C-alpha cells in the first residue's frame, strides 16, 4: 500500500518509508508481526502525525527510523531512507552517528526518559559530547542556550538539577532540548504531551510549533487527536500495525473515512459531546441489579456536603503544606460534580476526605446531613458502603492474590451478607453490568487490560449499591476509545441506578463531558465553582480562563459533527 500524503509543504523528501514490516521474535521462536506494510514520506518542514491506540505500532514504526526498534526486532522494508541514504543493514557505529545528530527523538513520558541520577544539563549535553561538538565549557554554554530556547526559565539552575527535581513540563522541555541539541533535521516526538497538565501541554506544543516553523521536520506520535490537530500537516491513522487511513490532517479529522478513525474522533469527550455516547457500545443493563431496594428519588437534600474543609500535610522536609484550603461543596442525587485542576492542586486529597480516608484539620463533611468525616469509626463503617471509590490505577486497588470473583464477592457480602452461592451469582450479574463476561470471574486483574480492570473496579464500586461513587482520575490512564466506553458505562450507571459521582480529573474535556457542576481547584483552593456549561463558556477566575485557553480543542471534530449529524 503506497499512500500519497499530498503536496509536500516545503522542500524535498527527508524520510522515505516503503512497505515497512517489523516483527518481534518471541521467546518460543514465535514471531509477532507488529508493523505491517507501512509506507510514508516525510518532507522538510513537514509535521507528520502517527495516530492510534496503544499497541497499534506507532512507536515501533518511528523507532525503525533510528534503528532502535528493539533487539529482537526483524525490520524489513522495500525502502527505508534518510535523505536518500538507505537505513537498511547499517552497522551500529553508523547508526550512532545518525542518532541525535540527524534525527532527534523525544521519548514519551519524560518522567522516566531522563536519567534520574544525572543532572539535566549533563543529559542535554550528552548528544554534543557523543558527537564531539565543542569543549566542555562551550557545551555548558550551549546547554543553557538550548534550555532557554525551549522556554525553560532560569536555565542555569535547572541544568544543575536532576529530572526528579523538575516539574513534568520542565522535564519534557529538557528532553526536547536534548533532542534538538545538534539541530537535527528531523525530530520524532513520541506522546510529547501525555500526562502533562493542560497549561504545560500548551507550552510544550508551542515549542514544537516553533521548531516546525524553523524548518525542522517533525513526526509526532500521539493518541490525543486534539494535540495532533494542533500540530500535524498530515496524519497516519494506525490500527493493529497497519495504516488504515492517511491524508492531510484537516481531511482526516474532518472527514474520517475509515470507521476506526471515525470511532477515534467520536470518542474524544468535550463540551460538545455532553449527553451523547462516545463509544459504539449500547447502553449497559444495570437497572435490574438492585430492584426495589431503594427509591433513589425519595429523600431530598444534598447527599454529600463539605464545609470549609482544610487539610495540610507535613512533607518529607518536615514543612507543613496546605493541600486543601477552605473548600466547600455539595453533591446532590444523580448529580456529577467534576473537580478539575492541575497536579498538586489538592484534588486527590479532597477525594480522600470525601471518602473519610483522611480527616480534615478543620471543617467537616456530612453525608445525608449526618457527620461523616467526624463520625467515630464504627459509624463510618456503616456508611462506607454507600460511598464507593474508583481509583486511577485500579490494579493497585486489588489485592494481587485475589481473582475477580473474590474481589466482587467480598464487596457484595459487605453490602449484603448473602450466602456464598448467591454472592457468586451477584458477581456475575455485576460483571454483566460492566460488560464483562463469566470468563472474567476467574481472572486475575493483573492479567486483564486496563479497561477491563477499570470495569472490575466499577463493578466493585457498585456492588454495595452506593449513593456516591468517587472517581479519582478514573479514566486518565486509558486509551481514548476505552475511555469512551468507560465514560458511557458510567453514564448508564448513573442513569439507571441514580448514583452520584464526585468526578476528579485533570482533563477538561472529560470533566466537561461528564459534569453537571464543576469545581476548579488551584493550590488547594476552589477558585471557581458552578454549573459546568457556565464555567466552560464563561470562566470568571483568571486561572480557569488560563486553563481553558491552554486547552487544545479538536476543532476539526466540531466541524465533522456539524456536517454529519
Amino acid at each position, binding site marked *: 500500500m503506497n499512500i500519497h500524503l499530498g503536496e509536500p509543504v516545503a522542500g524535498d523528501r527527508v524520510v522515505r518509508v516503503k512497505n515497512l514490516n517489523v516483527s518481534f521474535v518471541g521467546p518460543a521462536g514465535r514471531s509477532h508481526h507488529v508493523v505491517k506494510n507501512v509506507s510514508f514520506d516525510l518532507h522538510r518542514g513537514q509535521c507528520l502525525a502517527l495516530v492510534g491506540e496503544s499497541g497499534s505500532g506507532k512507536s515501533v514504526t518511528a523507532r525503525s527510523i*533510528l534503528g*532502535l526498534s528493539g533487539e529482537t526486532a526483524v525490520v524489513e522494508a522495500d525502502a527505508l531512507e534518510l535523505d536518500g541514504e538507505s537505513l537498511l543493514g547499517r552497522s*551500529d*557505529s553508523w*547508526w*550512532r*552517528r*545518525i*542518532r*541525535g*545528530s540527524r*534525527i*532527534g*527523538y523525544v*521519548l*514519551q*513520558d519524560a*518522567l*522516566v*526518559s*531522563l*536519567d*534520574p*541520577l*544525572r543532572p539535566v544539563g549533563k*543529559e542535554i549535553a*550528552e*548528544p554534543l559530547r*557523543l*558527537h564531539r561538538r565543542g569543549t566542555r565549557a562551550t557545551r555548558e554554554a550551549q546547554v543553557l542556550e538550548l534550555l532557554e530556547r525551549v522556554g525553560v526559565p532560569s536555565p542555569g539552575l535547572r541544568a544543575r538539577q*536532576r529530572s*526528579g*527535581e523538575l*516539574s513534568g513540563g520542565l522535564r519534557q522541555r529538557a*528532553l526536547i532540548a*536534548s*533532542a534538538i*541539541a545538534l539541530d537535527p533535521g528531523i525530530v520524532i516526538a513520541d506522546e510529547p504531551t501525555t500526562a502533562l497538565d493542560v497549561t504545560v501541554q500548551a507550552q510544550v506544543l508551542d515549542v514544537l510549533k516553533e521548531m516546525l516553523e524553523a524548518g525542522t521536520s517533525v513526526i509526532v506520535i500521539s493518541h490525543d487527536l486534539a494535540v495532533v490537530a494542533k500540530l500535524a500537516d498530515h496524519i497516519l491513522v494506525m490500527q493493529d500495525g497497519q495504516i488504515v487511513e492517511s491524508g492531510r490532517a484537516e481531511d482526516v479529522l474532518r472527514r474520517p473515512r475509515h470507521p476506526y478513525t471515525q470511532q477515534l474522533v467520536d470518542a474524544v469527550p468535550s463540551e460538545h459531546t455532553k449527553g451523547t455516547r462516545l463509544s459504539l457500545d449500547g447502553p449497559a443493563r444495570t437497572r435490574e441489579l438492585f430492584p426495589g431496594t431503594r427509591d433513589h428519588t425519595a429523600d431530598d437534600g444534598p447527599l454529600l456536603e463539605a464545609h470549609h474543609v482544610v487539610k495540610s*500535610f507535613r*512533607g*518529607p*522536609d*518536615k*514543612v507543613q*503544606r496546605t*493541600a486543601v484550603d477552605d473548600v466547600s461543596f455539595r453533591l446532590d442525587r444523580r448529580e456529577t460534580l467534576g473537580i478539575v485542576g492541575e*497536579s*498538586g492542586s489538592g484534588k*486527590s*486529597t479532597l477525594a480522600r476526605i470525601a471518602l473519610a480516608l483522611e480527616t480534615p484539620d478543620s471543617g467537616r463533611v456530612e453525608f445525608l446531613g449526618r457527620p461523616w468525616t467526624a463520625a467515630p469509626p464504627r459509624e463510618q463503617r456503616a456508611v462506607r458502603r454507600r460511598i464507593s471509590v474508583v481509583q486511577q490505577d485500579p490494579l493497585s486497588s486489588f489485592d494481587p492474590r485475589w481473582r475477580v470473583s473474590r474481589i466482587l464477592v467480598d464487596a457484595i457480602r459487605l453490602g449484603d451478607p448473602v450466602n456464598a452461592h448467591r454472592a457468586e451469582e451477584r458477581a456475575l450479574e455485576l460483571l454483566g453490568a460492566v460488560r464483562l463476561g463469566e470468563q472474567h470471574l476467574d481472572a486475575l486483574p493483573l492479567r486483564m487490560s486496563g479497561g477491563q480492570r477499570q470495569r472490575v473496579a466499577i463493578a466493585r464500586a457498585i456492588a454495595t449499591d452506593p449513593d456516591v461513587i468517587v472517581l479519582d482520575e478514573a479514566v486518565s490512564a486509558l486509551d481514548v476509545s476505552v475511555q469512551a466506553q468507560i465514560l458511557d458505562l458510567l453514564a448508564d450507571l448513573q442513569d439507571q441506578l441514580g448514583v452520584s459521582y464526585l468526578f476528579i480529573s485533570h482533563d477538561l474535556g472529560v470533566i466537561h463531558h461528564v459534569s453537571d457542576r464543576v469545581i476548579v481547584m488551584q493550590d488547594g483552593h476552589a477558585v471557581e465553582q458552578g454549573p459546568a456549561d457556565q464555567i466552560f463558556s464563561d470562566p470568571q477566575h483568571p486561572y480557569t480562563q488560563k486553563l481553558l485557553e491552554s486547552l487544545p480543542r479538536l476543532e476539526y471534530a466540531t466541524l465533522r459533527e456539524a456536517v454529519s449529524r
Partner: protein
Amino acid sequence: MSVVQTSSPLVSPAPAGDTAGRRARVLTRLAGIKLLSSLFVLWGTATVTFVVLAILPGDRATILLNVRSGLTVPRSPAELAPVNREFGFDDSFVTQYLTYFGRLLHGDLGQSYQSGRPVATIIGEQIGPTFVLAFAALLLAWVLTIAWTLLTAGRGPRLRSLGSAGETVTAGLPQYWVGILLLIVFAAQLGWFPVIGGTSPSGTILPVITLAVPLAGFLGQATRTEFDRAIREPFVLSARTRGMGDLEVRWRHVLRHALIPGITLSGWAIGTLLSGAVLVETVFARPGLGAVLVTAVGQKDLAVVSGIVVLVSALYVVINLVVDVVYVAVDPRLRGSL
C-alpha cells in the same frame, strides 16, 4: 524507582532562600536522632553480650584456673574464692553490670582476664588484619560484580543465564570450603601463594578471594536484577537515541542504577564479611579478630568478647552511615529527603 515517584505532588519546589537554613536544621535534628539511636545500639549490643556471657554455662573462675594450669577439672570453693574476689565474679550481676558498663562509659574496654592484656591492645593488634581482609574482600567483590554484570547482564539469553548461574552458584558456596580448596590447590600444590601467609600481601590474596567470591555472587544477583530492569528503562533508550553506544550506555547510565541495591547491601555485607572472616581466618591461620573472638567466647573472656562486640556494632553504625552517604552520592534523588 518507587522511591522517586512517591515524592508527593504536594511538595512543590520551595523557594531557594529559606531552604538552606531549614535543611540545616532538619539535618542537625536527624543527625541527633541518628546519634542517639547509634548510642542505643551500642548500649544494646554491649548489654546483650553481658547478659549472654553472664548466663553462659561454665564458671569463669574455674575456666581461668584450668586454662592457667592446663587442667579440665572442677575446682573446689577454696580454690575459686581468691579468683572470684580478684575479678569480682562473686559480685551480684547488677554490680558486675554496673562496673562493666561504667568502665565502658569511660572508654575503658577492660582487660582480658586470661592474658591480663588490655582489650584495647588486643583489638588494636587484631583489627588491622581483619579490616584489611574484610574491606579488600568487599572491594574485590565489587570489582568482580561490576565486571561480571557489565559482561553478562542485559545481553542475549545465553550470556544472561551464564551470568546468573555464575552468581547463584558462587553465592551459595560455603566460604570455609572454598578457602580449603583454594589453599590446597594454589598454596600447597601449586605453591603460588604462601601456605602460612600471615598478614603479608601475598598471604592475603587467597583469603580475600575466598571471602569475595560468594559475596560477589550475592551482590551480583542484586545488581543484575536492577541492571536488567534499568536497561529497559526509557532513559536508556533516550540515551541511545542521542547516539550513545552500547558499552557507554551500560557504563554511564545503567550501571549507576544497578549499583544502588548492592550499595544498600554493602553495609550488611560488612557484617557477613566479619562473620566470614572468623571462618576464613581459621582456615588460613590468619591473625585477626575472628580467632580472638572464638577463643574469647570459649573462655568466657567477657572483656574481650564485649570489646569486639562493641567495636563491631560501632562499625555497623558507622558503615551504615557511610552507606547512607554513598547511597546519596550515587542517587542524588534522595538528597532532599535526608
